[in-house]
């Protein structure tokens, strides 16, 4: 493949995982802050808080999969 194309593909993979990570970070920051607050008030909320906290991780995992597919294409 043309090196330019390879380079562009690499940049694409980087954007895919980078932006997805950013999105996850923003979402998780907000959920996490709320979860810590809830846990501080009632320690039994830890389990629920933890589960809600990691929901946005789906986004970055999908980003990772896309990046991986681009790299191997």
């Amino acid at each position, binding site marked *: 493949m043309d090196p330019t194309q390879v380079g562009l593909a690499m940049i694409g993979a980087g954007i895919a995982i980078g932006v997805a990570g950013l999105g996850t970070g923003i979402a998780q920051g907000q959920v996490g802050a709320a979860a810590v607050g809830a846990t501080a008030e009632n320690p039994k909320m*830890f*389990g629920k808080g933890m*589960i809600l906290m990691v929901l946005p*991780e*789906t986004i970055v*995992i*999908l980003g*990772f*999969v896309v990046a991986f597919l681009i790299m191997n294409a």
Partner: protein
Amino acid sequence: MLRPEEMTRAVVVGSIDSLDSTIESLYELGILHLIDFTEQDEEFKLGQPLGKASGASQSLLKLRSMIRSLNLEEHKPSEKVPVKSIETKLEQALVTLDMNASTKAESRQRIQSLIREKESEIRALEPVSAFDIPLELYEGYGSIAALAGVCRTDPSGALASRLRDYDLSVRARKADYAVALFARAEEASEASRVLTEHGFQETKLPKLTGVPAAIIKRHRAEIADLEKDLERTEKDLETIRHEFADFIIASEEHLSIEVMKAETPLRIATTANSFVIDGWIPTARARDLQAALNTMCCGLAFVETLPTERGDDPPVLLKNAKPVKPFEFFIDLVSTPKYDEIDPTIVLFLTFPLFFGFMMGDLGFGLAVASLGAFMRLRLKSYPDLQKLGTIILAGGIMASLFGLFVFAEAFGVPFHPPEAHPDEHSWESVAYIPIHPLLDKMTDIKEMLALSLLAGWVHLTLGFVMGFVNQIHHNRKHAFGKVAWLLILLGLFIEIMSIAGHATGTSGFVNDALLAWVPDVGTSIAGINASIPAVALIIVGIIGLSLTEGPMALSEVIGLFTNLVSYTRLAALAVGKGAMALAFNTMLFPLIFESHNIGMIIAGALALFVTQMFFVFFLGALSAGIQAIRLNYVEFFLKFFEGGGTEFSPLKYLRKYSAATK
């Protein structure tokens, strides 16, 4: 293992005369989880507290107030006080303490508040202390307004130009100006406006007479006297504390236990002549209960065990082998499993150290973490939770060392042997030749590690769904078959991923050739991606089954299952990431240490290396690998089967820390 301790419903019935001794023996035995009696009717009433309750709680109240006034909250007695000596000495001791400690503590409080009062008066007088104006002259005028306080800047000039007639005293201080102004009453508002422009803050003068400086001097002398008194009182209190501290703490514990026992009848049903205690006991110890009652209650109380009924909610006492027990810590953190739910502690015991070890994968860091864990386990006896955590960390550390030794062949981020591609890289060869070669290289075998992670994920998730099936099969067949549908979809996804990977990695090759050899290798191409037809078929069958059992809404979670599976690649990602960072730091710092030939540089480099190593061990290692390893269990694994919300088994019993029971 997998199931909590089996419980039996036990009802203890007896004559009201034996209530006291029955409660005593139940507490001694410590195996009955009491069910609070709530439904009163004409026959059955809540019991009355035992006779000793009121006296004991009064003494307890006194002791607790003494603990506060003697600052004994944190005191830990050096040796246990026998209950007998508490009981014989308590009354006398309470009188003595009441006379000495309480009055001393009161006078200490009085002295302290006097000192505070004097100090605040001194603070208030400070601004006007420079002026020779007696305090009584600052008030009581009809036509003159007096203003005293501090200004940020000197107001003399402004006052001269804006007021007609006034008397001003100003004294420059370190950062501001002390001001005392006497102005005509009709000019008072203009005067205060001028002062405000110079950042005036009025001082509220205390109602005293005399020249401020003299008052301050007098007050200081008084404070000095008071402080001497305070010191004397403190010394007296210290003597009392020294003499009685152990006794007070031990008595407080003993009386708390007595009150707890004495108030137990408030939780049980009684009639005029009998009592009924309803509760749960571990089935294995049902005999002990009757035996204990027979010996202690002279045959006046009896136990009846009842079979468990539907809708009963027995308390949960997790039952695990000794090495597995510390991992119950992770279960407690989330929720107690229900009585008829599978207890997943054993799976945590197996997977947590494995995941942790794989992510950490370093002999040096592993041993450091293991020694931290061993330290916590051996040294923090008084914190049971931290001790459990210590055991968990120890297990993780040992696993990490094993992975580091046999799989990744590296210690402190430095490989035993340089990789073939970079023969001049730093390695332990320059120290000693270790005849172990890596099975996996963190820098080159990334795909292999990804495939391994996915395999671990598939096994873990499959186990989760199987547990979910077992939990549901006696409750709700539909949900149970829903789990089977999920299993099919999961298998389909796994086959698809492995068929795309083909023989690119050893793991996927092994999976395709051995584990999934029965799957026919027929493929087609959908949107440029190779799709395995059996995989697609499994997913479709699963999806149909899912919409029949769990409803169409569950379909939206299919993509979630895929992310669950891919989520396990964090195992590989963390291992690689940690390896790469350790390599980067070592590459930067080793030349400084070994090649600079400058002692300052060598020390600086060694220090920097030490700090980064610590960072890896405790921050990246313990925190991130630990958190990710437990997260995979909590989120990916637990959500497939775990509901929680069970009642924790908390039997009637007490713990004596500072007092010793005497027969």
